């Protein structure tokens, strides 16, 4: 597992535990005790560290390559997932994946950015940076969900929309704007979960939702800390300051009433215990779906609009 720079001590202890495990055949009581002592120490350190991560440390956790991605959530939470491809206009863009499936027995439309997990899949998914056709596919799928009166779940995990010549030529701006427009007009519930990085316009295009939830150590921002630092401080080295100033953590955004709830992560972050975060996300999604199911289509749309209109006015 990739070791983040603030986890060195924890990593060293974990390495030692691994070594001891290899030495022990299962009988040596002293080694087993030693392992248990070290494990307690690791847990204590993780608890200390992860209860007060700085904004920049959260950015690193949110980008951790072994943190579960959209595909992982779909695999665990969605039964009989049928992936649907293409924008019917130009191309298939795998930076956004989507399709129908069942969540706890009920049909849902799932849409999310996928970053990929190894070199090959990262290339295939363009590192989770969608082009206009990705957003247009998302629009098509959202409208399909509305047609069949099926709620939409989106998983948000992107550094941002792809900055490229082709993307600009084909109207990246229009594609994002239209996605927001369609999100806002939809007469079925949309629930968004920021599972990793919520990168600016590229994120909000699929996160203009009735409920926006964030994982405890995920981030959501108008610009990356690196980008912000190089523009406002004229030095990318000030990324830690920028991260703090941007108030991009789930905790800050909840205080600012921009997001609706925070999903607790397992000890040491979602990347350490996938099963546990899947369970927490499942519970949180089910709670939101149950609440929103009580409302009719018009009310769902009005509630979503009102929520965004109130933002900033309610501070």
């Amino acid at each position: 597992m990739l070791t983040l720079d603030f986890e060195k001590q924890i990593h060293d202890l974990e390495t030692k535990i691994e070594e001891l495990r290899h030495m022990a055949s299962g009988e040596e009581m002293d080694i087993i005790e030693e392992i248990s002592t070290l494990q307690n120490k690791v847990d204590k350190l993780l608890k200390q560290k992860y209860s007060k991560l700085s904004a920049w440390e959260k950015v690193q956790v949110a980008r951790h390559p072994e943190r579960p991605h959209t595909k992982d959530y779909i695999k665990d939470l969605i039964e009989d997932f049928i992936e649907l491809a293409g924008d019917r206009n130009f191309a298939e863009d795998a930076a956004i994946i989507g399709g129908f499936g069942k969540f706890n027995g009920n049909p849902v439309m799932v849409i999310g950015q996928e970053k990929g997990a190894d070199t090959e899949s990262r290339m295939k998914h363009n590192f989770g940076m969608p082009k206009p056709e990705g957003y247009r596919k998302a629009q098509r799928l959202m409208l399909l969900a509305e047609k069949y009166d099926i709620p939409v779940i989106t998983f948000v995990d992107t550094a941002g929309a792809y900055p490229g010549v082709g993307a600009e030529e084909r109207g990246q701006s229009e594609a994002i704007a239209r996605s927001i427009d369609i999100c806002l007009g939809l007469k079925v519930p949309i629930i968004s979960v920021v599972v990793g990085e919520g990168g600016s316009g590229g994120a909000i295009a699929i996160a203009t939702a009735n409920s926006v939830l964030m994982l405890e150590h995920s981030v959501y921002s108008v610009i990356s800390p690196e980008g912000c630092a190089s523009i406002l401080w004229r030095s990318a080295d000030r990324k830690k300051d920028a991260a703090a100033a941007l108030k991009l953590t789930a905790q800050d955004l909840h205080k600012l009433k921009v997001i609706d709830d925070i999903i607790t992560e397992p000890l040491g972050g979602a990347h350490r215990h996938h099963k546990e975060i899947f369970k927490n996300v499942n519970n949180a999604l089910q709670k939101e779906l149950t609440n929103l199911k009580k409302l009719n289509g018009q009310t769902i749309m009005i509630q979503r609009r009102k929520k965004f209109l109130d933002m900033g006015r309610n501070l």
Partner: protein
Amino acid sequence: MNWLTDYVRPKLKELMGKEKKDVPDNLWHKCPGCEQMLYHRELVENLSVCQYCNHHLRISVKKRLELLFDGGNYKEIPLGKVVQDPLKFKDTKKYADRLKTYRDKTKREDAMTVAVGTIGGKKVVISAFDFGFMGGSMGMAVGEGILKGAEEAVRSKAAFITIPASGGARMQEAILSLMQMPRTTIAVQMIREAKLPYIVLLTDPTTGGVSASFAMLGDIAIAEPKATIGFAGKRVIEETIREKLPEGFQTSEYLLDHGMVDLIVERKDLHSSLSKLLSHILK
């Protein structure tokens, strides 16, 4: 990015009577398009358009509104109060101090002006950006200005025109500036539901989160010649793809070629074009 490097201050003295003129008449401007030196008085007479290369230089909101409304007459609607610096943002300077500097300099509350008047005799509400105020960046006040413009248009059954001139999000308002993307989109939806015309006049520059929300959702999208319009910054794109950008990339003409705007209209023809258009689409 220095937002003011190529911003030419309008000649205000004729318009504001007692206002002290801050640009002497003998000042020369360098055209950002062809680098020719332009004599200030001639430039003003030519609506801040270069006589050599037709580059449309940035103009003040006041000048812009006078050009568009019938007889140069309009009424401003005051911007509502919005929360000030809710994040207590500080980079090399406090955001609160930056705001104060720009307010003193521009005598404006923020980068947005909402105005009502007529164009070709048709009722119109305009929400216009002021690039001179922090690069026209979009924060809470700007978002509220777009919403206010839309509400006023619905109330008075007027056409709604937005005129972006903006580098994008107001970074100092961080996530709240991002939230102006859906909020301004709601303004567009209000106009759509009232079946009123929504026209966007894209001016230099229209980029970032501004281009990726209300600015790309016009019923009709008009651009001034050679304006920079796009989502991602050129430098970011060059660093990502490491290729030379195509000729004329992200200009109005490039967007027209790629089907992203309806028409390009020169500044001097904007009033008459809008008048004709409105005569077709607004009762």
